[in-house]
Every structure is written in structure tokens, then in C-alpha cells.
């Protein structure tokens, strides 16, 4: 069978599985729809959280980013895993103890303020929509590259699938499909990595193959460093940006991870406080499986690419090179007209431009692996994008039906009515997300920095102070959130949209990139919240009681 028929079969089978699970796990109450009845086993929830969290970006782009940035790319590996330590230690158990359905509900109740809840709803909607647009686009791109349909058709198919299981099953349906999606995506990520590791390092464990020594006493990283130096690229093991910027980006990604509403809500679905802690641990374990493999994929695929392509005559290159050239992800421009591919660190003389996403997408072909592996990677990329999209859409629908409708506009709505509106808002959210996927605002890639920065500078500190400071009150929390948000948003908007030409380290404050500015935003939030809380009356007695309750074991 060809790559394309394998892709059809594997993608088709995985979709049938998701739909079947959705029919099996239909939501019957709002508690089912919002938190899967709070009856999800911590290991199952950990697996679902891992799929929820790992998006198309983790699956498709991260290894490529690490390959391109070397040591500098570690900020993504550490930032997107270290956040789970914060979640398990500082967030998940207390939010589970509180035991409501949404993050805005926690903010509203802890600070005893409808205004705080509404601000939180707006943040949640903004973060989730920016993120979900990127996922739908990712679905479209995977479809178009592997199944040769148009990107738009791909987005429509993705919408139909998500619509079906998110609207029908709510959190319950999403949880079980996410477990299946995790299995598909991790299998799809590990199989090519194991093949590559066997071929390049002679061991089936990629994490080990990365550092294992060969007969000459050199590791795969040493060999890549040597190749990179020969061609004038920065060495893999030493590359990196400014030290302060690396620290800030890592911290912003960690805080952002812990503050993303679609991740936090997953911890409402386990039965006990203790389960919330262990569930975060399981989630990180499942995530670590992919994240520790990513640098191995980066090094192996990059080495294979340099060895098979660089310095070879164009006419003798393997078939996959020409196939991916057709998608525009590989561009070869024979500047000196000698018919040989010169891939060099010097931008003037370099003739080959390789898109970062290709390292994972094309790794089966670069490594000369069987055709079914390529089909598997397509199914894995779709699983990663769909699972994240569904989790985000659920946050959007609960924010609307539970926080806005039931919480503020129509408190007397019946259980059935609320469930009905939860389904309607999920459906509308899918359509809006699909629209954004079909007509992407030119800045989908840019808004990822936005989502993390905003989560780090708003939710992260507001929840943290809500648990760990008894003195923090509504005026403090609201002014802190608004100050942190507006500071971070203006910095990002200035460098990304107003003056993109100035977006270089010389113009950044203390060399901190827009990706890392969320940390300063969080500090601004902290300072403002503390000052305002000191100058205004302490929270009333019943709210102090609530804090005591959060801190108690049961």
C-alpha cells in the first residue's frame, strides 16, 4: 500500500474510534458535561490531560524548534513540563478542594466578586479562542499534506468530528476520546523515533541513543555538533539566546502552562483532592515520554537530513525531497548554479531552506522507514490537534453557559436548560473556531506568545494569591489582573504588530523577548495586587473561612 492509502486507513480507523467513544460516553447532566461527574480515575485523567495539553505545536513543531535552536530550544522542553510541578504543588489540589466547575467560578467565589468573575471569563475566552484557531489550522494542514485535500476541506472535516463528540459528550466524551488520542499520538511519535534511534545509535531507546557512545567514543550529539560546525551552523549543544531571556521565556511558559484554563479544569474531574495531585504527576509522566523523545528526534532527523542532502547533487536526491519541495516546506535555490545542494550557516551562500515542521512530518521518509509509519504520523498529528481543540472548546462553552448565563444573566435557569445551552455554545464555539481556521488572522503563530503571556500575567497570580494570601481581596485581585494583562498585552502588541521591525534583542527591555514578557507582567500583577490590597479593607470573614477551607485536607 502507498503512503496515502495507509494514511486513509489509519486516520479513518482513529476517527471511527473517537466517534464510537463519544457515543458510548454521552453526557446526561451538567455535572457530566462540565466535569465528567467528577468520577475520572487519576491515571485516566492524567492521560487525558496529556492529550489535552500536547497540541499540534508540541507534536509537529517542537522537535524542529529544538533542532534549530539547540540548547536555546530547551526553554520549550523545560517550560512546558516544569509548569506541571507548579500545577501539582500550587494549583490542582486547592482547586479540586474548592470543587466547582470552572476557573472563573473559583475567581468569582474566592474574591466574592461578580466583576472578578467576568474579567476571568473574558481572559478564558480570549486565551482559548486564540489557541483553538491554531489547532483547527493544524488539522487542515495535516489533511492537506497527507491526504491531498484542500486545507479548507481538512478544517471542515476536523470541525465535524470535534462538533460531534464535544457537543454530545461534553467533558465525559472528551475525556475518553482524549485517552484514545493520547495513545494514538504517543505511538505515532515513538515509532519513528525508535526506528531512527536504531538506525543512527543502534539502540531502541531514543533518550538513551541521544547520548550513547559509539566505537569512536562519540555520541549522536557530538556527531551533529561536528556536522553543524563543518557547515558553519551554531553548535547544537551550545546554541542559545541571552541568559536573562532564556530564564524569562522558561518561567513565562511554566506559569502560562499552570494558568491555562483548559488544563486546570481537567483537575476538577477526579474524585478526591489527593487524586488531583497524583493525576498531575501521571499527566507529566505521559507528557515527559514525548518531551524527552523530542530532542532525540531533533538530533537524529537533523543528522539524517544533513547526511543525505548536504553536498549532494540535486539530481541524485531521494524522492521524498522532491515531494516535500512540492509543499513549499523545503526550498532549494541553486545560487551558484553547480547543481549541488549547499546547506550552509552563511545565509548568503545557503541554498536550502527547511521548514521546522518538516523534521517530524517527514522523519519517516528521511529515515527511510516503512510507508505505514508516515500514515501513523498523520493520524498522530490529527489526534494532537483535535484533542487540544476539544478541550479548549469545552472551556469556551462552560464559560458561556455556566459563568455568563447561569452565573450572571439567568441564575434561575434549569439544569436541562443549562445543559442545552452548554451544547449550543459548544456548537457555536466550534463554528467560530472553524471560521478562524478557514480565515486565519495573519498572526496565528504570533498569538501563542499572547496566550501564554496572558495566562501567566493574569490567572496564574490571581489563583496563586487566592490560595496562599489570606489578605488578598477583590480590588487587589482585579487591579492586579488588569495591570498585568495590559502591561503584557501592550508589550506583545507593540513588538508583534505595531513595530515588528523593532522586534530584535537590542530594542527589547533588558533583552526580554515578547515570549518571555509574561514574567514581568506577573510581577506587575503581583506588585499592584499587593499595594491595592493593603490600601483597601481586608476580605470579609466568610471569604477568610473559604481560604481556610481550601487549605484543609478534606
Amino acid at each position: 500500500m502507498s503512503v496515502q492509502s495507509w494514511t486513509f486507513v489509519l486516520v479513518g480507523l482513529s476517527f471511527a474510534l473517537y466517534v464510537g467513544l463519544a457515543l458510548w460516553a454521552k453526557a446526561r447532566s451538567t455535572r457530566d458535561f462540565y466535569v465528567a461527574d467528577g468520577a475520572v480515575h487519576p491515571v485516566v485523567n492524567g492521560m487525558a490531560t496529556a492529550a489535552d495539553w500536547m497540541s499540534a505545536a508540541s507534536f509537529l513543531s517542537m522537535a524542529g524548534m529544538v533542532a534549530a535552536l539547540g540548547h536555546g530550544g530547551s526553554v520549550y522542553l523545560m517550560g512546558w513540563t516544569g509548569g506541571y510541578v507548579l500545577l501539582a504543588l500550587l494549583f490542582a489540589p486547592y482547586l479540586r478542594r474548592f470543587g466547582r466547575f470552572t476557573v472563573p467560578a473559583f475567581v468569582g467565589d474566592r474574591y466574592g466578586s461578580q466583576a472578578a468573575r467576568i474579567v476571568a471569563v473574558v481572559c478564558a475566552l480570549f486565551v482559548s479562542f486564540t489557541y483553538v484557531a491554531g489547532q483547527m489550522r493544524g488539522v487542515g494542514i495535516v489533511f492537506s499534506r497527507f491526504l491531498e485535500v484542500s486545507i479548507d476541506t481538512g478544517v471542515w472535516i476536523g470541525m465535524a468530528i470535534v462538533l460531534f463528540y464535544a457537543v454530545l459528550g461534553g467533558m465525559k466524551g472528551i475525556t475518553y476520546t482524549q485517552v484514545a488520542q493520547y495513545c494514538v499520538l504517543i505511538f505515532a511519535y515513538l515509532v519513528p523515533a525508535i526506528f531512527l534511534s536504531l538506525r543512527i545509535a543502534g539502540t531502541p531507546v531514543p533518550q538513551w541513543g541521544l547520548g550513547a557512545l559509539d566505537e569512536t567514543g562519540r555520541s549522536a550529539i557530538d556527531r551533529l555538533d561536528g556536522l553543524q560546525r563543518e557547515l558553519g551552523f551554531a553548535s547544537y549543544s551550545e546554541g542559545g539566546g541571552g541568559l536573562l531571556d532564556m530564564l524569562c521565556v522558561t518561567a513565562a511558559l511554566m506559569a502560562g502552562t499552570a494558568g491555562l484554563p483548559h488544563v486546570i479544569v481537567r483537575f476538577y474531574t477526579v474524585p478526591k483532592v489527593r487524586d488531583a495531585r497524583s493525576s498531575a504527576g501521571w499527566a507529566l509522566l505521559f507528557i515527559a515520554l514525548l518531551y524527552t523523545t523530542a530532542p532525540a528526534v531533533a538530533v537524529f532527523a537533523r543528522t539524517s537530513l544533513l547526511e543525505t542532502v548536504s553536498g549532494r547533487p540535486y539530481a541524485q536526491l531521494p524522492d521524498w525531497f522532491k515531494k516535500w519541495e512540492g509543499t513549499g516546506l523545503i526550498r532549494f535555490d541553486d545560487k551558484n548554479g553547480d547543481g549541488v545542494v549547499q546547506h550552509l550557516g552563511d545565509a548568503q551562500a545557503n541554498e536550502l531552506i527547511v521548514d521546522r515542521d518538516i523534521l517530524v512530518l517527514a522523519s519517516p521518509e528521511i529515515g527511510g522507514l516503512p510507508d505505514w509509519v508516515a500514515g501513523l504520523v498523520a493520524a498522530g498529528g490529527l489526534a494532537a490537534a483535535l484533542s487540544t481543540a476539544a478541550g479548549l472548546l469545552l472551556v469556551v462553552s462552560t464559560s458561556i453557559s455556566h459563568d455568563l448565563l447561569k452565573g450572571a444573566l439567568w441564575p434561575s435557569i434549569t439544569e436541562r436548560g443549562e445543559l442545552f445551552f452548554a451544547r449550543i455554545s459548544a456548537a457555536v464555539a466550534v463554528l467560530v473556531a472553524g471560521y478562524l481556521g478557514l480565515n486565519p488572522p495573519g498572526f496565528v503563530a504570533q498569538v501563542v506568545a499572547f496566550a501564554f503571556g496572558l495566562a501567566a500575567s493574569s490567572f496564574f497570580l490571581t489563583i496563586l494569591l487566592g490560595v496562599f494570601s489570606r489578605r488578598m481581596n477583590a480590588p487587589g485581585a482585579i487591579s492586579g489582573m488588569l495591570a498585568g494583562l495590559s502591561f503584557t498585552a501592550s508589550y506583545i502588541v507593540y513588538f508583534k504588530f505595531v513595530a515588528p521591525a523593532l522586534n530584535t534583542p537590542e530594542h527589547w527591555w533588558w533583552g526580554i523577548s515578547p515570549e518571555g514578557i509574561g514574567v514581568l507582567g506577573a510581577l506587575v500583577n503581583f506588585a499592584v495586587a499587593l499595594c491595592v490590597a493593603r490600601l483597601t479593607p481586608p476580605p470579609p470573614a466568610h471569604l477568610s473561612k473559604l481560604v481556610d477551607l481550601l487549605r484543609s485536607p478534606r
Partner: protein
Amino acid sequence: MNERDAQLYWRSNLRYLAALLSIWFAVSFGCGVLFAPWLNQWRLPGTGFKLGLWFAQQGSIYTFVVLIAVYVALMARLEKRLGCYEE
């Protein structure tokens, strides 16, 4: 739970958090970024990993998993000691 136990529970929790988060900070921001270039002069014994790079791309992530497992175990022990462990 009486007032004294509740205070003991919360204080112990804060102590655990301080200890575990110091390690969290040290392996990622410390070994993985600040001291990575200095650590790179050594290699992880038996392998070709430069130590700083290993912490940044592998070691810190493994440590994170262990940290959460330790926290789960510490809290379970504390809750059993105070008689508030949920079966």
C-alpha cells in the same frame, strides 16, 4: 479537624512546597540555563551527554516527575499521620 492539626497540616505543606520548589528551580533555571555552560565541561558518566545540556533537555524533566511523586507521597504520609487520609 481541630485548629491545631489544621495549622500543623498547612505549615508542613508549606515546608514541603519550599523544599520541592527549590529543587525545581535549581534543576531547571540553575543547571539547565544559568550554570549550563559551566556544567558542559563534564559529561554524564558512561554517556556522551554534556551535563548542562542533559539537565536542560532530559534531567530537569525526569526530576519534575520525581518531584510530583515525592509530593504525593509526603502529603499522603502527613494525612495518614493526622488521621485525615481519604480512603
